[in-house]
């Protein structure tokens, strides 16, 4: 990569680099560049699309029927890649509806219809003459609120570019305007060089580049001279006159020509310390900061062989193009179809309706001579003459791209760097076989993009599906494990019951355990009443809520059992409590209940004069281990201790 010093040195010597290829179409700028930019009367209706930039559209903040003032915001930025739109004049919001768009497809998009009231009344503006006292973020916000997006063509939100955290070496101001016919930037530079310079000053303040390069093609000497005068006292600023060669104005090409650097394949200019702004954008930034005016109008060139009065006009954003073509006196013909091209002859697109509105990126309406022939009709096979690759500024092989695009071999087309095509149209311009090459590349690109989207969607869906199956499987496994454990616990309990002649259940489920406790107590109650009395005191000694609850349940059950005094009722109780066992999982309760059961088992053993049950203990311990909880364990131990004491007392009493 060329070093900063080399570049500055070469610029000072007026030595530039070159880009490969390029074509030299007749520039035809003399048609429209001789008259000053004109102001037009207000059109009858304005169609302001809600989104005029790359990114997300803002959210509406006005309603149908509301009166709005000139410059009043109509939407609010809804995300970082969003800029608002503003009312281009004062008037009433007639409708917010779908309207034919300024897009090659003409597909309808949400548009606000504004009926001017003719007063052209401004909203209160907030000028900031002392921009240098404002901090960077305030300026970026001002630029965003003014609704500025790149005016050179792509329409990228400007505030994103002005908010560049990377270290910048070069700020390049693009006044190239390499498309034939268009003179909007040319006139703007000639008439408003000072305001453009103010815009550059603001950009310099926010971006802090080491050097500024202002580049103008050498077919616009007046514009270059005007900028030279405006920027005379500006340090670290080079004014460069580049050769007239299409597509010099392409971002990548201009960077290559003035710095010798190349933007990496999948990178951005900021990756090589460069950022670029169109002069129209500079003008709009100055307007937004110094005058507080949002972007509501722009210069549009009305030109072509089919108009009687080619000229540049200030067109309000939203002006239907029919209004402009009428002013340029378009010679209408009933027999022939007339093309109206929005943009230049190389990269512009034909509009589909006279009601298409002027948007922030509309720099030209070109009306060429009416004709029958459409280029698509006379396409011949490619003869591989390679005239296209000779003119390709990106050094691609357009004939290979065509071959693979036509065959829908998109992998191979990408191997030939399909996505490095900037769609400048130089290849199709020279093609002897009249092949609309760019059209093929666009189709191939969009096919690749939608393929990618689809793949991503499919992958996401698959990931979701896999996650779900996994989850269901895990759930199933867990359930099965629980069932198994429960079943084993029940079996163990049965075995114990045989040994101790006491029915003890050690299932980890609280309800079941509680039921078992109840049963055990009921039996005990029948045999020895004093034990019951001491047992009723237990809860008071332990201050665990759960323990109390369990005890209460046990008490209730004991009472019930005592009253009925029948074994059948016990069995009923068991079956009733089995149901909640599955749904209700409460480990805490289980542990406490288990501890209680243990204690009782000991007690029962003592009262029966048998050795403490050794078989129950291990099963209880395993449940304890799996559901390890120190606190609960301590509580259980305490309960057990208390019970042991009570037992000893009871024994003494009995003696």
């Amino acid at each position: 990569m060329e070093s900063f010093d080399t570049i500055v040195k070469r610029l000072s010597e007026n030595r530039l680099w070159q880009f490969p290829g390029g074509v030299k179409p007749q520039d035809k700028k003399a048609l429209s560049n001789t008259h000053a930019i004109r102001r037009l009367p207000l059109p009858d209706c304005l169609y302001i699309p809600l989104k005029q930039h790359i990114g997300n559209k803002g959210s509406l903040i006005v309603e149908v029927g509301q009166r709005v003032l000139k410059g009043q915001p109509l939407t609010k930025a809804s995300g970082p890649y969003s800029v608002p739109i503003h009312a281009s004049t004062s008037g009433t919001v007639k409708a917010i509806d779908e309207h034919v768009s300024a897009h090659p497809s003409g597909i309808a998009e949400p548009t606000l219809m504004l009926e001017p009231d003719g007063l052209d009344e401004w909203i209160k503006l907030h000028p900031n003459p002392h921009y240098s006292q404002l901090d960077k973020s305030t300026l970026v916000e001002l630029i965003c609120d003014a609704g500025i997006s790149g005016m050179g063509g792509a329409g990228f939100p400007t505030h994103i570019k002005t908010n560049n955290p990377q270290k910048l070496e070069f700020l390049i101001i693009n006044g190239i305007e390499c498309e034939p016919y268009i003179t909007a930037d040319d006139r703007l530079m000639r008439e408003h060089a000072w305001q453009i310079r103010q815009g550059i000053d603001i950009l310099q303040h926010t971006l802090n580049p080491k050097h500024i390069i202002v580049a103008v093609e050498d077919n616009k000497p007046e514009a270059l001279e005007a900028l030279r005068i405006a920027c005379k006292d500006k340090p670290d600023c080079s004014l460069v006159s580049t050769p007239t060669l299409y597509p010099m104005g392409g971002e990548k090409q201009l960077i290559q020509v003035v710095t010798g650097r190349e933007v990496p394949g999948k990178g951005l200019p900021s990756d090589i310390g460069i950022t670029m702004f169109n002069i129209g954008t500079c003008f709009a930034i100055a307007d937004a900061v110094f005058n507080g005016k949002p972007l509501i109008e722009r210069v549009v060139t009305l030109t072509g062989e089919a108009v009687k009065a080619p000229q540049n006009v200030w067109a309000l954003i939203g002006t239907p193009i029919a209004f402009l073509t009428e002013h340029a006196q378009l010679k209408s013909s009933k027999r022939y179809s007339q093309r109206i091209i929005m943009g230049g002859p190389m990269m512009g697109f034909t509009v589909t309706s006279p009601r298409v509105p002027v948007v922030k990126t509309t720099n030209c309406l070109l009306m060429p001579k009416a004709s029958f022939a459409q280029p698509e009709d006379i396409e011949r096979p490619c003869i591989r003459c390679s005239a296209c690759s000779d003119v390709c500024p990106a050094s691609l092989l357009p004939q290979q791209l065509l071959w693979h695009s036509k065959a829908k071999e998109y992998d191979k087309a990408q191997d030939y760097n399909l996505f490095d095509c900037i769609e400048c149209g130089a290849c199709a311009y020279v093609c002897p076989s009249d092949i609309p090459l760019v059209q093929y590349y666009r189709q191939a690109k969009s096919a690749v993009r939608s393929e990618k989207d689809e793949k991503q969607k499919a992958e996401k869906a698959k990931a979701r599906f896999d996650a779900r199956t996994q989850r269901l499987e895990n759930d199933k496994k867990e359930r099965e494990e629980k069932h198994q454990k429960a079943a084993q616990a029940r079996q163990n309990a049965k075995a114990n019951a045989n040994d101790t002649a006491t029915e003890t259940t050690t299932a980890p489920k609280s309800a079941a355990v509680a039921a078992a406790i109840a049963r055990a107590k009921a039996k005990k109650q029948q045999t020895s009443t004093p034990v019951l009395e001491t047992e009723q005191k237990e809860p008071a000694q332990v201050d665990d809520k759960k323990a109390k609850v369990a005890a209460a349940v046990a008490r209730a059950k004991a009472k019930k059992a005592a009253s009925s005094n029948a074994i059948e009722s016990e069995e009923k109780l068991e079956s009733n409590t089995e149901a909640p066992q599955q749904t209700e999982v409460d480990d805490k309760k289980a542990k406490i209940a288990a501890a209680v059961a243990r204690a009782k088992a000991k007690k029962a053993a003592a009262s029966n004069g048998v050795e403490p049950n050794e078989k129950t203990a291990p099963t209880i311990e395993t449940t304890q281990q799996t559901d390890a909880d120190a606190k609960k364990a301590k509580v259980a131990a305490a309960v057990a201790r208390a019970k042991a004491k009570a037992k000893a007392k009871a024994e003494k009493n009995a003696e």
Partner: protein
Amino acid sequence: MILGTSSSPHHTARRSTQIIMQLVMLAAIPGLLAQWYFFGWGVVIQLALAIVTCVGCEALVLALRKKPVVFVLNDYSAVLTGWLLAICLPPLLPWWMTVIGCVFAIVIAKQLYGGLGFNIFNPAMIGYVVLLISFPAQMSQWLPVNGLAELSPSLLDSLSVIFTGFTVSGHDIEQLRYTIDGVTSATPLDSVRTAITLNNTYSDAINSPVFNGGLLASWGAGWGWISAFYLLGGIALIMANIINWRIPVSVLVGVAITATVLNLLNGDLYGSAVYHWFNGAVMVGAFFIATDPVSASTTAKGKVVFGALIGFWIVIIRTFGGYPDAVAFSILFLNMSVPLIDYYTQPRTYGHSTKNRAENSAEKRKKKSN
């Protein structure tokens, strides 16, 4: 008002395929006139016959393939193919051989491969090689050039020989080939080959009468001038930006380097660069045939490789091979190699590393398979 639509770019500065073909033929006219001057009416008759046959074949196949006949014929590519084939043929070749050559060129080499733009081989050269392999004797029956011939056939004689085998006065082609010295004429390339097989030196060989009348010692009589006129036409094509300079210049340089190396090794056996340039079909081949865009390399570097290798093969086959001239073979060999050459000579795309694209895509594939 009807709004028309079109896709960008809306303006073009194109020279249509049709104009390109016509301009190529225009540039070939000086050479053709020289051929007519030195070899007589046979040249013109072959030209007319070849063009009619080629256009007829093209129309027939297009009709069979259900393609728009007039629209496609309008590209003039069939006319040019016939033209290029005709100027390579001996002037008094029997008519049916010319027809066979044309049928092969158009039907097999061009249309069966998919028509204009899809043929891997240069159709005219396929037609020529088919004839050369099938009818080697007739294909080497070149007449002595004007001024050296004993009998100069008139327009009527030529017509008669081509269509019946005999002139109006009853001479056959072998009699017409007698020179004023009373021997059967040979082309300059032939005569040098024969001389060397007879253990004569190259410098002796170019003292023979077939080299009299050239501007330089090694110019064949007539052939040198014909080559010079094709060279002129070729330069005009480069100036008019119809053909790229890379292929013809590399062919000539390839011929010159190979010939000079051999000539320096043994000047008695091997001809000089000028000898190779101005005899046989090198000039026509370099400027008019190797530059056929469809079958040539398309990358800048590839064109140089393509041209240089053609030049190399021309000299190698002429010197060591069995055929006196080798332009057609060399061009066809390199036509075969074009996909390979193009693949390895792709230019570096803007913003990409200097690494060869082939390596890059190989890497990508590796990553994928991993």
